[in-house]
């Protein structure tokens, strides 16, 4: 089997080690550039199932602004980022909303909830636009 080479920048801490990994049949045969154990853990996570927090917005009605910022309440698999965005296409909220309110539970089967990252009051006054 060929040896496959991969490069990672560890983002566990600000040092940001540049790590070179060699893989054979999907198994790590060598790893260079890590300065600590966390770097190794970072690489195995990235090789297995890289996880990311997703932050985005959804439309909100009756508030001062058009969009409500939201996030996943925990990291989700990177490969599902676009799936989650797609599942959010038809989601809309009506003001008021409180920070940390759950907008969608267990989005795309990730186990993560989509939560609001700010509060928005209902606009009481009518307003010309």
């Amino acid at each position, binding site marked *: 089997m060929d040896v496959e080479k991969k490069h990672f*920048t560890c*983002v566990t801490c*600000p*040092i*940001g080690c540049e790590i070179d990994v060699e893989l054979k049949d999907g198994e790590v045969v060598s790893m260079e550039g890590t*300065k600590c154990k966390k770097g190794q853990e970072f690489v195995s996570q990235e090789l297995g199932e*890289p996880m*990311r*927090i*997703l*932050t*985005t*917005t959804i*439309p909100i009605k009756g508030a*001062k*602004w*058009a*969009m409500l*910022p939201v*996030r996943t309440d925990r990291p989700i698999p*990177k490969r599902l*980022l*676009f799936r989650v*965005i797609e599942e959010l296409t038809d989601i809309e909220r009506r003001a008021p909303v409180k*920070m940390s309110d759950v907008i969608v539970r267990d989005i795309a089967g990730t186990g993560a909830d989509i939560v609001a*990252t*700010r*509060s928005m009051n209902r606009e009481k006054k009518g307003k010309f636009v």
Partner: protein
Amino acid sequence: MKADVTVIGSGPAGLTAALSAHESGAKEVLLLEREEELGGILKQCIHNGFGLEQFKEDYTGPEYAERLIKEIEKTNVRRLLNTMVIDLTPDRAITAVNPEKGIFQIESKSVVLAMGCRERARGSIGIPGTRPAGIYTAGVAQRFVNIDGYLPGKEIVILGSGDIGMIMARRLTLEGAQVKGVYEIMNYPGGLKRNIVQCLNDFDIPLHLSHTVTEIRGKERLEGVVVSRVDEKMQPIGGSEKFIACDTLLLSVGLIPENELSKGAGIELSPITKGPATTETMETAVAGVFSCGNVSTVFDLVDYVAQTGMTAGRNAARYATGDWKKERPSVEVIPGENVRVLFPQRYSFQDDLILFIRSAKPIESPLSIDISPLEMHIKKLYARPNEMIRVKVPRDKLKDITESIEVNITER
């Protein structure tokens, strides 16, 4: 109107300063904000990565802001929204304007400047070509997408690898746009490593170092840009031009402190940071006027912004309550070898000296930060211009200084 401490601007710097002035015993604290909400730039920074140092939490910008706003709401700090400060005099008379009061004056015992920074625009970097629609600074695009809910374009080129540009590269990709590449004139990236990994690499967005946009094409709407490779002197190399079709160009080419008010008040500005020169107490050259956050120098972490806000607020309260005496003149803090940015610029023997340092070039080998005339050598594994280094020098070590303090970075 009268106040003990008046804070101008309600981003993380201003919010922290107002809280800290209140907690330090100032009775009448006034917080002025030109927008209709508190929070500053954080409201549009919907991504996470805020407060990792300060709270050991990974907040988004709005979450970080709301936390501070809730604290402020528990106090009697007076908040005036939609209130723009238009003038400040050296004797701390503030002129502001808002819809209810029109133009009005505030007399304040001390003032904290926390107006943040603004983005450099196309004019300040001078790219030749036409003037079509479709060219925005990254921060303006961020506001469009995250607050107003519309996409500035479909095919995007980003000039400059500052954090905001990289964050927008990811944001626009997630929203369905195609980001064709990020072009950086320097031979190293402008932003943090974590943003290169999580905003560019994660989405296979190429980062081209030593490249710049040399021409803009398009009549009504942008049709594309010409990019060129640059040499060590950052001059475009003839023959390396490449046309890239795009309908949107985002500029992420740096931030500069908002310093109109500071200039009007006769405050000495630092040629290096472009913001007011201050001592470790955050006091400017104008007595009783303090400055913090991005209006002082552009920080890359909100945690550092908040730290300067806390210091400014505490000392502004001391000044206002008469608990302020200067026993000896301040000394200069001078950037030496390999140091591009150094903040603060003076030391006045009242507090610990917390230095914020940017190196002049990337150094990826062991080095030492030398603080002379003290025999203080702080060892580091690397120094990068895009990552501010924070160094604390305790007050008792500094008491015998008479001339000036110099900071050098020496490669070991």
